[in-house]
């Protein structure tokens, strides 16, 4: 079984601007892929090229086994970054219409829309005009509209933006359930926590180029671990301590300091702790902190070379 989406040496140039540069990656079927990158990294352009909305300058795309996305449109669900729906339509009408464009028969689309809305707590609002729904409800309807035709591949461009924490959690559950059902989910985001919780695979993009492709665990390993020390000592007390770089000092209440430092990968944390004790430093806290995706993201996208002060 081939990849749901295979992108090979894809490049998109707008005049002098290189939006996507020699990008290659694959999204396996039935998996959740996080497409990460800072604003302007080329995520939306890549997704649009995958959907056949924008023609690549060079490179190849295979989506659900086809090089021409128009042949598999009916099997793809898409939610664009900025979104809205027909304000005077009801959720059922809007979902039925959009599912109808994906080839679902009207009666079936209407039934499926009703079921989806009921199961996501929008049963009471399903016959109300969308303009009369709250923003959160309308966003949920928009998302469900992309799913009403049971797509094999779901592409969500920044799906979490604008959602409150409760709806973000609800969306995470929905994305997991789609993957459980066997659908492939590709979503772009620059909020790493969602990707960290959801993704089997992440692809990081910076300035149009791929800077990472792999699992979340592998991405985390790209960033160095850090050490947190707290205690009533002077700010320069750790200078010269082996294995610690990029010290970041923060003054806490009661005259204590918190020092966060990047740990040299070649130096075990026990060595650092041993030296601290050897110097007789009055420490209240020593913590070895594993890197998170956010730190890896910052490092990989070169947004900030030193992640020592990251919290």
């Amino acid at each position, binding site marked *: 079984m081939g990849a749901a989406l295979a992108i090979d040496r894809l490049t998109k140039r707008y005049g002098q601007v290189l939006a996507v540069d020699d990008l290659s990656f694959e999204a396996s079927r039935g998996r959740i892929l996080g497409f990460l990158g800072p604003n302007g990294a080329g995520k939306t352009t890549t997704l649009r090229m995958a*959907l056949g*909305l924008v023609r690549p300058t060079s490179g190849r795309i295979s989506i659900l086994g086809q090089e021409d996305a128009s042949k598999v449109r009916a099997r793809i669900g898409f939610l664009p970054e900025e979104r809205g729906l027909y304000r005077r339509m009801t959720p059922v009408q809007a979902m039925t219409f959009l599912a109808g464009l994906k080839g679902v028969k009207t009666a079936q689309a209407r039934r499926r829309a009703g079921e989806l809305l009921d199961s996501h707590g929008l049963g009471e609002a399903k016959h109300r005009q969308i303009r009369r729904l709250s923003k959160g409800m309308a966003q949920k309807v928009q998302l469900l509209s992309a799913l009403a035709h049971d797509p094999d591949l779901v592409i969500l461009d920044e799906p979490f933006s604008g959602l409150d924490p409760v709806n973000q959690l609800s969306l995470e559950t929905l994305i997991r359930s789609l993957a459980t059902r066997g659908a492939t989910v590709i979503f772009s985001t620059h909020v790493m926590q969602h990707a960290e919780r959801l993704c089997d695979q992440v692809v990081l993009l910076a300035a149009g180029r791929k800077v990472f492709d792999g699992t979340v665990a592998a991405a985390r390993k790209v960033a160095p671990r850090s050490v947190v020390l707290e205690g009533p000592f002077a700010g320069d007390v750790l200078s010269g301590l082996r294995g610690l770089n990029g010290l970041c000092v923060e003054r806490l209440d009661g005259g204590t300091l918190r020092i966060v430092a990047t740990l040299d990968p070649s130096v075990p944390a026990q060595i650092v702790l041993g030296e601290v004790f050897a110097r007789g430093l009055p420490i209240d806290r020593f913590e070895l902190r594993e890197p998170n995706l956010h730190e890896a993201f910052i490092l990989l996208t070169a947004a900030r070379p030193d992640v020592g002060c990251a919290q």
Partner: protein
Amino acid sequence: MTHVWKIAAREYAAYVQTLGFWLSILLLPVGFFVLAVAPTIVQRATPPPALAVVDFSARHLAPEIARAIRLETAGGAPPARLVPAPGAPFADAFDASRRLRPFLAGPSVVADGERLDVVAILRPAGGTVAVDIWSRQVADRSVAGLVSDAVDRAIRRQALARAGVDPAVVAAIDHVSASVTDFSPKAAQGKVALRDRLPGLVGLGMGFLLWMSVLTGAGMLLGSVIEEKSSRILEILLSSVAVWQIMAGKILGVAGVTATVLALWVTIAGVVVAVRYPSLGADLADILLARGLLFYFAVYFVGGYLMFATLYVTIGAFCESPREAQTLLGPMMILISVPLMFMGQALARPDSPVLTVLAFVPPFTPFMMVARVAADPPPWQIAATMALMAAATALEVWVAIPAFRSGALTSGRFDLRTFLAGLSRRLD
């Protein structure tokens, strides 16, 4: 094609289900009715202007003016009402104008409690009569014209009488006029009747109808695409169906809305004509069907609508708000106003070289040809304009499809350079 119908049906329902749509449909017939009865209502509600005549001419002209008012009244509302000049007698014309002027400028009333509207001061001037008209409403020349005509007639009769012509002869000559009959080889009976002029009038009417349809339909399309662009629904549609299907669906849907409006208006007009002028209704039906005009109208209607609808849909794809669209709508309005200025000429001079040339300019072709086709232009002109219109529309659609996609995916404010780049996308 199913997708086109689905988009068209949604577009159609979106308009037809609104109260505003039905109100706007009814507004036009109501507007026409009001337009027809408004002058009568205004005339009935407004008393005839009060006219005071001060005659220094010594020619006894005031009774002539009174007679003219009586003749003009003829059972209807009188054009003016004679009242005595307040403060008469006057020393001379200057005295009269000086003393009567305040009655015309302010709220002062004449003796019987009414306002004075017009004063006509007649005075001798080098063997003839000068008429000074003082009016409250400077724009209303109706009473001045009536007085002037009455005085002209009277002094001519007096001059003829002084020259020894019998007044009875003068009165008889006044009624002499030529009997003019219009003939034309194009008239069915040789003699030109209303029925022979009807095709030209119908063509002109259809031209205006097409113009209105294009304007309203294009406006609807523009609004609809802008709404979908600003809410990013267009992007969802683009990921679901082909660009041509979106464009065709929207154009078809709004065409359905326009057709519904036209059908309702034509039905209302048909009922009115059938009830009030049954023979005219039969003539109209005969003209449209027997001479193939209906076919020509249909072809030019479809071509014209498609041409402008495609253009407006493409413009809409580049705009996030109607205000942004105004940048291009200004030149568009100038373009679409050109045939409006020339269509009327087609009634009298359908073969004019200017109109013929304009008929071959694709954006004007539908309007100019609809207005001219009833005058039987050479068949090659009909064939050539149709072919040119079809080719221009096909070229426009060919350029518009990638431009629409490009516009739909752009964000930010409308930019003319981006729009032109979008139009040239096909040429990349």
